[in-house]
């Protein structure tokens, strides 16, 4: 993965490319997820069963972070992981196979879309709100112990900032000066509960001060805003100066999960107008950083990669039920 320490036009193009890849992926998963659940929506049916939480609209967070992270840095994420997983460099074919529950998946079909583990990129995610934060501290602890400048990024939603694990984790990370960056994606909604009804402060950035670390809120859902804030926070962590808290005001373009009619969302009609992807693309075209042809080529590339991953998944073997009890324990030991 290439790092972009400066916000050059190359960096801008790469981040746009990443956002396009993510959006293409999420649209494809959306298509695949619903394809075989009709006529009535049966959540357990089809090639991709279970819950599905897609990240369309939140691409700027992923792309802005990804520009500063290597494969060796760690990341923990949430039930809505695809965008940050892709930006982190998680292997697309194996990730997709896992979402399709196949033997070739990251977890051999045992984890699914909310429990993606890629040791090659030190990426993991969990379906329990805020509980991905403590393990990120542990990865940072190991990096610090070994004298490296690797960092751990813990991604969570604004709802997580009201869970005990968030508060414990911020305190401990600051106390031990761990190389962690906490990234809160404020997409306004904890399922159906708006932020104003769940959170006692208007910006979680102030909670950084409560735990002795810098806190910054990126108000616009802007990939360059994230890029700047993340660059500073990650550099701080790499330098051994401890953790930071970043909150990004982002946008959940679709429902909390697929099947969510979003009846509670009064502003639903206006939502597509805030889509960050065309906004950024148009801005870059206007400034001559890319042309319309460049963009079309990005899209075509993305489609190729995504459809390849989906085809790989669909062609992969389904796990044998007789093997369901395999991999509970490692059964090995250190000599």
């Amino acid at each position, binding site marked *: 993965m290439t790092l972009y320490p400066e916000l050059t036009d190359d960096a801008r193009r790469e981040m746009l490319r990443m956002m396009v890849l993510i959006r293409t992926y999420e649209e494809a998963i959306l298509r695949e997820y619903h394809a075989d659940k009709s006529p009535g929506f049966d959540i357990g049916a089809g090639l991709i069963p279970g819950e599905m939480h897609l990240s369309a609209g939140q691409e700027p967070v992923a792309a802005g972070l990804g520009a500063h992270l290597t494969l060796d840095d*760690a990341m*923990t994420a949430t039930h809505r992981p695809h965008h940050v997983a892709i930006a982190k460099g998680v292997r697309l074919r194996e990730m997709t196979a896992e979402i399709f529950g196949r033997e070739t*998946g*990251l*977890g*051999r*079909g*045992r*984890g699914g879309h909310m*429990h993606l*583990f890629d*040791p090659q990129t*030190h990426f*993991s995610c*969990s379906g*329990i709100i805020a*509980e991905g*934060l*403590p*393990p*990120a*501290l*542990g*990865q*940072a*602890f*190991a*990096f610090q*112990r070994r004298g490296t400048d690797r960092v*751990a990024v813990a991604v969570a939603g604004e709802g997580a900032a009201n869970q*005990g*694990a968030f508060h*414990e*984790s911020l*305190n*401990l990370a600051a*106390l031990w000066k761990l190389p962690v960056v906490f990234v809160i994606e404020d997409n306004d909604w904890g399922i159906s509960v708006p932020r104003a009804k769940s959170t006692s402060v208007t910006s979680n950035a102030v909670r950084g001060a409560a735990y002795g670390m810098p806190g910054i809120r990126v108000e616009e859902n802007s990939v360059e805003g994230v890029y700047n804030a993340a660059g500073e926070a990650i550099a701080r962590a790499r330098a051994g100066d401890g953790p930071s808290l970043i909150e990004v005001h982002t946008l959940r373009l679709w429902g909390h999960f697929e099947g969510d009619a979003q009846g509670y969302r009064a502003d639903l009609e206006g939502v597509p107008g805030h889509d960050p992807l065309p906004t950024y693309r148009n801005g870059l075209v206007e400034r001559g950083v890319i042309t319309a042809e460049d963009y079309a080529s990005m899209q075509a590339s993305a489609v190729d990669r995504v459809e390849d991953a989906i085809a790989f998944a669909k062609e992969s073997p389904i796990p044998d039920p007789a093997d369901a009890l*395999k*991999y*509970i*324990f*490692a*059964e*090995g*030991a*250190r*000599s």
Partner: protein
Amino acid sequence: MTMTTGAPGAGASIEPDPGKRKLSTSKAIQEAIAQQMRADEGVFVMGEDVGSYGGIFSSTTGLLEEFGPQRIIDTPISETAFIGTGIGAAVEGMRPIVELMFVDFFGVCMDQIYNHMAKIHYESGGNVQVPMVLMTAVGGGYSDGAQHSQSLWGTFAHLPGMKVVVPSNPYDAKGLMTAAIRSNDPVVFMFHKGVMGLGWMKKNQRSVGAVPEESYEVPIGKARVAREGTDVTIVTLSLSVHHALDVAEKLEPEGISVEVIDLRSLVPLDRDAILASVSKTGRLIVVDEDYQSFGVSGEVIASVAERRPGLLTHVSRVCVPDVPLPYASQLEYGVLPTPARIEAAVREAVADRLSS
């Protein structure tokens, strides 16, 4: 993150002769941890008051002096955060020993334990290991009340993905701690406060015993016949092993021969050992300091009943009833699985014999 599996501990002796040197259970645990920390710089200890205090129940006395504060780490009262930190460090190849001060505190951090520590290996299809030890103090009998006296091993054993070991004596404590640290799986190591040999709590004489000086392992998942007998089988664990042995010694002159099986591990459960003993005696008593219903005692009995239902001529269990543990000593000892209750259960079990 480590993607490797490991070979079983090469060169580690399994259950050697105890020798002559005696330690208390707490000192045996300290020695196991110290020896593994000398052998592997990835091993470290984290928990509340594990540093200069040496652990509330003396699990880490002396370790800070030898290994320093970078490796014997006092944490804030943040179980979710520091147990999770252990998980992340383990995932990156370290070997943390994390202490949950009282098992009763699991309520504030159980998600990290059962949804993360225990499940990551399986959810990742075996691609990510969590070689971590979660050690914790269990047990009552000294009036610490309902929130500080529980055993709760049934709760942990019930949830898939973590090994659970419960040593009753110094020899097994050192061997199982060594095996737990070396294991590539997450192991919950539960030590009863009453077997630690603490000077400030009533102690059974078996809290001090012979322990080999060298490093060795007791295999996880294997029970031990603590005492051979022919009339009745007591399957038990932890402090209750001592009480069962006391009762067996007392009843032998009366011609009642009691076999005592010390389970030592709950996950994996040594069902073969249980069956082998019940095949001899036909009479099964389970003594378990955890709550009676929906736990270890039911599991032991079910394990026999489903495999060889015809084997059993008698089944009973001596457990803590389904009640919060009372504070007043008299009340507390009214519900604990005391030697008196165990003795009564044995007598009742053999009452069917025409002659003694």
